[in-house]
């Protein structure tokens, strides 16, 4: 027969220790923690380096990046290259997964240390980086004419799904 109340007293001893113990609250707006090097904040784009390859737009699981692409001879080399006239990152959708950062071939999209986004309107959270604003809610339409440019293979169109049959396994 255990002594009645013993366990309760033991537990109350623990809470009493904590009553006088070190507190762990951080007073947030006054005190801000140093973010670790890898922390993933809001995205930003270095538009000078962007080559409008649309890799980030393709990989983005949330469709939060929309790019409007044109051909423009930006560097004066005489050859028109893809150029991002519109670039929008919709922070109301972004989930900071960092996939776009990883696929970017020129490292022009990267995370900042900012994480406090607020707005009265969802569309205010869509940050425009390009010359022309892009509507983040509308799917990007092809503006580039398909030329015989030496620009690698096409995007996978709707892949034909194999109908029925056991696949591989059985």
């Amino acid at each position, binding site marked *: 027969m255990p002594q009645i109340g013993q366990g309760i007293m033991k537990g109350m001893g623990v809470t009493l220790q904590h009553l006088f113990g070190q507190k762990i609250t951080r007073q947030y707006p006054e005190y801000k923690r140093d973010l670790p090097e890898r922390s993933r904040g809001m995205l930003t784009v270095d538009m000078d380096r962007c080559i409008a390859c649309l890799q980030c737009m393709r990989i983005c699981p949330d469709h939060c990046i929309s790019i409007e692409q044109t051909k423009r001879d930006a560097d004066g080399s005489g050859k028109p290259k893809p150029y991002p006239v519109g670039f929008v990152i919709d922070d109301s959708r972004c989930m900071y997964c960092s996939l776009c950062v990883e696929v970017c071939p020129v490292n022009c999209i990267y995370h900042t240390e900012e994480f406090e986004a607020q707005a009265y309107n969802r569309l205010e959270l869509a940050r425009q980086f390009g010359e022309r604003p892009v509507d983040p809610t509308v799917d*990007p339409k*092809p503006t580039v004419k*398909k030329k015989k440019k030496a620009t690698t293979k096409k*995007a996978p*169109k709707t892949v034909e799904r194999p109908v*029925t049959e*056991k696949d591989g396994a*059985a």
Partner: protein
Amino acid sequence: MALTLPEGDLQSRLERYLEGLDNRQGLEGSEIVDGVVRIVAKKDDVPAVLATARQTLGIPHLSFITVVDREGAFELTYELIDLRGATVRVKTTIEGDEPVIGTVTGVYPTANWHEREAYDMFGIAFAGHPDLRRTYMWQDHFDHHPLLKSFEISTKRTFEGLR
């Protein structure tokens, strides 16, 4: 009440399962690959195959039921594990747009919700299921089965024409 888990080493158990299942039912295919007994059964045989697995071979646990919509046919995978390293994977195919298959809730009570989920997402009717309601979607006013390939989502991006 104590539960007896299967004993013996993995390979012999796998062979026992394969043999036990193969002897009783006319299976379309059966083999052992990487510690997994792979069974292909006819649609109507599935409840019997699973009953053999549970009652005769003593495989206690039904892990999950996966349905794959092959557009015109449904492929069902019943994954059974004996909690000691062996896996039995029973596959079957249901043809047609109004798929019906016998329930296995009688042998594996845990199949109850798995079958409800399959019904909800694919519209597969499990004959004899005690409580075939939708799990996730609205109980009424919703006639769709979202995981069917014919159920189009509105936010899909195609990137067609984009380089």
